[in-house]
């Protein structure tokens, strides 16, 4: 088991290097630091001096890959590639274009993201599984048919509609909770209600439909049939035999996205002005803060790979047939 984990971590290294090279090419070779300086300083009539100053200020005034002027190991370390890309491997994100420490910002903004993402995940999964279970219990009836129609329709509605609609209905018309904002501690709960509700409702369509398929695949298998044949009630067949088996892919699917919860949701956080990592990324995109976007790409990739690893491990926990070596 341990050997497997270590090996998986080793596999992750080339992927992280690949992502790193990709972002490096995208951010520094397709567009040179000069281009970025012009973009940030705005007008076309910028003096070359101003460009040089901007580059020096942000540490872009070094050669890209090989510094021929430096000596020894500095030949490779005193470059943009080393300073901006290689350092990401030790989670040294550096400073943003506006001069703030990115690592500090991330550590601060992680918690609001989690405060929304975790309840959305838990409540959402609970509702989706229960709804799917009801549909499967009443399978091949009108309840099943209309539930499928409803879930397909809900699936077809843009996330933007759920957010805007929720804000308008609950926040503006009914004045139940504030439309947007954030606070720490217990004061924050009233701000969290709306984003969580919207997130849960937005996920019902896709989630329930997916779980229904998973349940239906199990419901007609031989073990379920023999359960019915020996006289178990349908409820008992479903809850004792079918659901535990169908829950395996559901649980492992959830485990895969657990690490990514840290990243938050771009849309929800920006609409509800929650100071999480999602809105942080979005702000960076809109301010064209390349340093932050680069860091978030790396962080996101890292978390994704952790998620994959956790999925494989969780299989061994819930499914005794799977052995990793």
């Amino acid at each position, binding site marked *: 088991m341990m050997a497997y984990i270590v090996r998986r971590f080793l596999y992750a290294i080339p992927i992280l290097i690949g*992502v790193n090279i990709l972002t490096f090419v995208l951010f520094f070779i397709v567009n040179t630091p000069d*281009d970025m300086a012009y*973009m940030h300083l705005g007008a076309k009539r910028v003096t070359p001096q101003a460009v040089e100053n901007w580059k020096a200020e942000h540490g872009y005034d070094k050669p890209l890959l090989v510094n021929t002027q430096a000596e020894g190991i500095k030949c490779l370390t005193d470059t943009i590639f080393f300073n901006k890309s290689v350092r990401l491997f030790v989670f040294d994100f550096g400073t943003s274009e506006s001069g703030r420490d990115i690592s500090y910002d991330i550590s601060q903004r992680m918690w609001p993201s989690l405060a929304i993402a975790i309840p959305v995940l838990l409540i959402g999964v609970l509702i989706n599984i229960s709804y799917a279970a009801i549909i499967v219990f009443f399978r091949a009836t009108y309840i099943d048919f209309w539930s499928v129609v409803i879930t*397909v329709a809900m699936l077809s509605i843009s996330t933007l509609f759920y957010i805007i609609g929720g804000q308008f209905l609950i926040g503006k018309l009914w004045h139940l909770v504030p439309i947007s904002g954030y606070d720490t501690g217990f004061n924050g709960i009233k701000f969290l209600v709306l984003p969580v509700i919207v997130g849960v409702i937005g996920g019902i369509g896709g989630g329930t439909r997916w779980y229904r398929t998973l349940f239906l695949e199990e419901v007609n298998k031989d073990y379920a049939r023999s359960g019915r044949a020996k006289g178990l009630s349908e409820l008992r067949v479903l809850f004792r035999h079918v659901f535990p088996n169908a829950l395996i892919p559901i649980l492992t699917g959830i485990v895969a996205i657990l690490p990514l919860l840290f990243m938050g949701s771009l849309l929800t956080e920006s609409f509800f002005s929650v100071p999480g990592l999602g809105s942080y990324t979005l702000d960076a*995109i809109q301010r064209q803060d390349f340093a932050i976007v680069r860091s978030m*790409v790396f962080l996101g990739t890292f978390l*994704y790979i952790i998620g994959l690893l956790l999925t494989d491990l969780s299989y061994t926990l819930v499914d005794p047939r799977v052995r990793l070596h």
Partner: protein
Amino acid sequence: MPVVLWTDALIYLLLAAALLGIFLSRRHPHLSAPFKHIVHSRVGVASGIILLAYAAIGFLDTLHFHPALEQSNAQGEAMVSQRILSVLDILTDSLRQHSEKTYSQPFAMYAYVKESSEMPDGRIVREYPRLKWGGAHLNDAQEKTADIIHKSIIGVVIGLLFSMLCSLLITGLLAWRKHRTLKQQLTKVWRNQTELPWRLILLLLSLLIVMASLSGYLSQFYHIMGTDKVGEDVFYQALKSIRTGLVIGTITTLIMLPGAIILGLMAGYFRGWIDDLVQYLYTTLNSIPGVLLIAAAVLMLDVYMTNNAELFDSVVQRADLRLLFLCVILGVTSWTGLCRLLRAETLKLREMEYIQASQAFGVNHFMILLRHLLPNVMHIVFITIVLDFSGLVLAEAVLSYINIGVDPSTNSWGNMINSARLELARVPVVWWSLSAALVFMFVLVLSANLFSDVVRDAFDPRMRKPS
């Protein structure tokens, strides 16, 4: 003078491929079987017709040209304008021309905000000014309701006449092909005894025609979905956005298709280091959160476009290139799924007897891939194309909202939502832009989702009944 933009060219290519596909599959019964399944399914036919209606509007909006100018130049040659219009622009000319100053509600006669105007006697009054076009033929507000009802009836009647004509024509053609009399065929259609669900098709077609004629007729006199901040007709914007949505949904898949197919087949067939390389490639790309990769790429495109503004002749071309680039980037993030599926399927197929037989006969690898493997994985490709479509249409709206989507000058549902959402804080609310975009998007995505279910059932061999 016709103009072919980059995305136009790709749409023509897509159409040509679709026509070729239909032509080929008509000759091979095993290929036409899934299509038969689709046209026999009621849901498939219904959603297919709605998708076709959208596609038709999108296609009209694809035929671009430089409009000719009235005057000719010194040599007496006809001049063309530098502007780029589409056939849809000509068909909806009145909608495009009828622009107001600013917001107005659907079917409004008066503008949405008060404005100071000078009376003949020199007094300044603040009131809601009359709209330039919306309800301009009316004398006072009392007539409006009666006028709208009157005009709607005219619109519906015209639509009904057209749809009856259409239905008769189609039934006539059917009768001619089946060697029945028109009356026999009509009864068969009416009692739903035809092989294909023609009653449903004709009803839906009639409904579409009636809706088109109703909205077309009313929009001559009113802004049926209101106007936006700069006074543009929202109905016109929503219609123009259809093309953007369709382009994102289809061209993205078209662009990523060759790469995904070639790499997936090669990885599965050759295995060894090619397999390792391809797997590494798609795992890496898949690891990057999609939105962030798109954001990074689009940011870079922005920088490039700002610094090389002289490369683009016109705003339309610039916007078009940006749309194409967005498709490419979305393709880069979405090809991995298809590639993985194809690799897995090829790994399975390469051990089959017929592949081993052709290897034993000395058929070269290229021919085996082309003749024996590719046709047998095509069902996966089809299912992916259709399944991806609705997700991509929805993604466009979200991306445009974060400003990493299409160019702000392109009409798209995302841009409509983006510009309208700030106005939700107004009292009373400006709701029409937002609702129009969401409804148009919802209908398209819903029919695409329903259609994709039918397509998946039709093409998935596991679902096929043993015959």
